[in-house]
């Protein structure tokens, strides 16, 4: 079996905010009725977390659930466990009207660390990052591509985008975090 690597192979940039490729993350996309008992159970069994409310994200990259839309959740699990977790979810869902697919290798995940990460993000997205509460998953545009952003605390943010634009995203965030590019 080939060795799995991320698009950027753990690249990092130390600007006035640190930009890191978060490494291999297990991600499972679920479409269905998020209030359905089987859907909730499948997500909880895989992640250990309860279904978040609208726009919420609970848990961590190793076990979490993000609310993506009224009928879409992103389940976060350790990378190596994702295929088995997705298979177990399908077993739990059985006849429920839902769709499960592992998307770990279709996405790239970044972590931003630093006091001014809200500023670094605000420069590259129209979303009101200054008002984004910790624990809320905000899907928006990041310069020219789509991204989902959340803060796990005031100095740690995460961003998920398509793997095909991982390099663009890394260059973009690094440029935004370049020393001398501070705006406040």
């Amino acid at each position, binding site marked *: 079996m080939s060795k799995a690597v991320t698009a950027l192979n753990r690249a990092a940039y130390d600007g006035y905010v640190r930009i890191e490729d978060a490494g291999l993350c297990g991600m499972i996309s679920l479409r269905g009725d998020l209030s359905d008992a089987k859907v909730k159970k499948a997500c909880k069994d895989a992640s250990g977390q309860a279904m978040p409310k609208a*726009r919420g994200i609970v848990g961590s990259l190793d076990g979490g659930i993000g609310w993506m*839309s*009224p009928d879409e959740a992103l389940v976060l699990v350790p990378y190596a466990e994702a295929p088995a977790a997705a298979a177990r979810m399908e077993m739990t869902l059985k006849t429920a009207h839902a769709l499960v697919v592992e998307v770990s290798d279709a996405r790239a995940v970044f972590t931003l660390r630093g006091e001014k990460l809200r500023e670094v993000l605000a420069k590259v997205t*129209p979303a009101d990052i200054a008002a984004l509460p910790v624990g809320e998953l905000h*899907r928006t545009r990041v310069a020219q591509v789509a991204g989902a952003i959340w803060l796990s605390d005031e100095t740690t943010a995460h961003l998920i985008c398509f793997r095909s634009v991982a390099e663009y995203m890394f260059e973009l965030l690094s440029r935004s975090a370049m020393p001398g590019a501070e705006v406040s």
Partner: protein
Amino acid sequence: MLMLKCPYCGVVADETELSPGGQAHLTRFGPGASDEDFESYLFMRENPKGVHFERWRHSNGCGKWFHAARCTATLEVFGTYSAQTVEPPEEVRAAITAKRPGWSWGEFS
């Protein structure tokens, strides 16, 4: 900058996070329709200066289609609402009437 609140995820998105879907509340005429109905469905559109109803998609967001009522002259937004309807809901009509008494658009007023 036009900003619309997506009724599905509750995010206030700006125009660059949305994709326009053209005029709202069209009745589709497909195979078997008369030439006149098909032509009207394909080509004939409202083009108002003032109250207008449109479809938008929260494409850089939750991905859902929704409806919006706005003024084409001022960009004032009267309301956004579900895509699963064939007419503007009462509260949106009331909001328009409060700001633009006597408005009409297609079959609605």
